[in-house]
């Protein structure tokens, strides 16, 4: 087990290295470098001044040298400095992380709280009116774009609940209630596709398990339906659900990028959109690195969760 985790962590290093090379190259292939974007449509700047700015940012160095400088910095724990604000990239990310983390975790919690019972109900009452409703709603939830749902909720709230503080962000520490009120709409918007996806996966996985031999055995030896479902079937049905949660967390992050834009929340999503528009290379690289690491670690945790759900799973 420990050896397995160690090996996965070594993999993580290689994934991060690969992603860093890709992102490093990709941001430099986008037309227009940081200096040109910084100067915008301003044509009165002399070429000398442009060259000086570029030199100051180290953008005149050969690309492999730039990468090496950046990489050695990262290995020393220094993600670099944001080109526009002059603040350390790590500080920028840390300042924005709470909002994004909060939305993501709340959305995940909401998805679990709703998807588990819905999936179970739907599978148990297969073919019933309730099952039909759940299946229809889950299709709707999967299809509606997060962006659209967010804007729609905002409009509905502004018309019927104008007193609700729907826009912006206040930290939980300073205003717990204000924070939760503002988080409600974005959390619902980003969790909808996840609720729908998890419900469908759980339903089909549970149906499959309920049709298997050992469930028939359990039933035929006279076990009541409740213990059959919750003690025997559900546990086995959860394995694919957990896998999907790991993958969906990645999608959740992309939904958060959009939703932060709609609700004017200063999170990681807004930060990376701004960084890309401004060609803020160190910031883009830093954010992508952090997101990649989070994604890989979450998937590692998902793999480890298998053993907890199903003791037969072993890691070699």
């Amino acid at each position, binding site marked *: 087990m420990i050896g397995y985790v160690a090996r996965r962590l070594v993999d993580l290093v290689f994934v991060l290295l690969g992603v860093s090379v890709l992102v490093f190259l990709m941001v430099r292939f986008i037309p227009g470098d940081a200096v040109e974007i910084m100067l915008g449509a301003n044509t009165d700047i002399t070429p000398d001044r442009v060259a000086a700015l570029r030199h100051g940012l180290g953008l005149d160095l050969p690309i492999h040298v730039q990468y090496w400088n950046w990489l050695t910095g990262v290995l020393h724990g220094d993600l670099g400095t944001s080109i*526009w604000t002059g603040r350390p990239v790590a500080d920028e990310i840390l300042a924005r992380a709470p909002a994004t983390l909060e939305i993501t975790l709340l959305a995940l919690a909401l998805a679990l709280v709703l998807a588990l019972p819905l999936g179970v109900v739907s599978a148990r009452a297969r073919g019933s009116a309730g099952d039909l409703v759940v299946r229809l709603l889950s299709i709707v939830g999967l299809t509606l774009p997060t962006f659209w749902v967010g804007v729609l909720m905002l409009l509905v709230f502004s018309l019927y609940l104008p007193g609700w503080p729907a826009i912006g962000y206040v930290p939980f520490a300073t205003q717990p209630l204000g924070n939760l009120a503002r988080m409600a709409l974005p959390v619902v918007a980003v969790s909808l596709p996840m609720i729908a996806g998890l419900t469908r996966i759980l339903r089909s996985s549970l149906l499959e398990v309920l049709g298997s031999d050992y469930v028939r055995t359990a039933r035929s030896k006279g076990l009541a339906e409740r213990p059959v479902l919750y003690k025997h079937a559900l546990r086995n049905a959860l394995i694919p659900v957990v896998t999907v949660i790991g993958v969906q967390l990645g999608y959740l992050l992309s939904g958060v990028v959009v939703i932060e834009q709609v609700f004017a929340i200063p999170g990681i999503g807004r*930060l990376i959109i701004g960084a890309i528009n401004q060609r803020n290379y160190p910031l883009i690289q830093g954010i992508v690195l952090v997101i990649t690491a989070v994604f890989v670690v979450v998937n590692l945790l998902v793999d480890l969760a298998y053993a907890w759900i199903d003791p037969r799973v072993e890691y070699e």
Partner: protein
Amino acid sequence: MRTRIGLALVTLVAAFSLAYAQKGTLEVAVDQAPVGLDPDIVTAFSSFAVVNEIYEGLVGVNAQLQIEPALATSWTVSPDGLSYTFELRQGVKFHNGREMTSADVVYSFDRIMDPKTGSPQASRFNEVAKAEATGPYQVTFTLKEPFAPFLSNLTNLFVVPKEVVEANGDLQKVAVGTGPFELDQVVPDTYVLLKANPDYYRPGEPKLAAIKFNVVPEASTRAAGLRTGTYQLLPTVDPVTAETLKKTSGVTVLGTQDLAYSLLGLNTSRKPFDDPRVREAINYAVDRSEIVQAVYLGNAVPGGPISPALKDWAVPTSDFPCYTPSVAKAKQLLADAGYPNGFSTTIITFGTIKEVADTAQVLQAQLARVGIDAKVDVEEFGKFVQDWKNSNFDMFVSLNGGSVDPDGYLYRTFITGGSTNVFKFSDPSVDQLLKQGRTTPDTAQRQAIYDNLQKQLACTGPIVHIAYGTLFTALRDNVQGFQQMPTRGLTYLRETSLP
């Protein structure tokens, strides 16, 4: 005893008027966070919105686009038009409490002109030989040659305190000016908070205790926030949102003529746009009223090289024959130029301003009617700016900013080698008129020169001028005293009050 009562009264009145004068925080929603705060370095409009509340120049411009006194109370111009002497307002304090004097004006001018500052404002003052402190409250600017737009350019010379610049390297993150509001707090990508300058020299201003510029990237979110009262002022609103907000109770929508214009730019260094007949043909092919209706929902006016908002300068479009659309004339001109079957080309544009991208679509259809097959390429904004700057286009659709002086509209854009002449346009007679226009002090003579220039440029110039839109501002009904500016400036926030 009497004096004592008098003194007490004065104190009471002063205390009362101060308490009365400054109250409330105005919640403003803007689309973008300011990109730096140094008035001599920034170029982004989002920065100027904030900077304009903090800093001031010797002169300012009012809602009628007239030059008015600001840090200077009066000025005199020598008969030869080469020397401008300004009398400064006395007792004006920077936000750090130090008094502003003539030395600060000279320092601010020198800072803009210093190549190390890299100020985009520098080119506005190329005609100035020097600025001197001719007294503690008097500054004299000496010009190399008479320069008519000098006063209107001077509105861009913000007076900054030397010691703050030297302590911080630049003014991108700190802000100390003389303006009605001072910087209180910046939370990146969230808000900028300004608070009233208690020592401001205009009596009874500012009336607000604070202004909060909330950064809200989504237009629909800003509109929803205005409806609920979360925000009280949206400085810019697109025409479609303006229409819906007009029907909302508790909300007022203001409109004024924009100085900026939408345009179809032509690269005159590339065939076939090097031929004036082709440029004229395109003008005949374009139906500006159709664009005004389809893209701006009627909230714009077709215009020539100068905004109709500059009433003393703009030539009415009825004087431009090519502004009456005619497919027949366009085809005839194309045939004369050797393109009887039209030609294929590409229009580049960008998607961040809806009216711009929409205009490109309508233009594509209009050009097709005369046989010009134009592919529309909607580029990411950063790439567009680069292609624009490097003249890497056949045609482009964009929005050009305006000016309160005709020279600002025409000189940089049309003079051979001009800094925004990305069209590579060069016409000796235009060059000569542009130079005359800026060196002629007499207004009537200047008007004649610019009338002539507009007629020359309207139909065969490198720009097909399309339309000057209406600028919309939306505010809650309880916001009093705000006035819109055609420049998009928020100067009148200092007169704005909340109940």
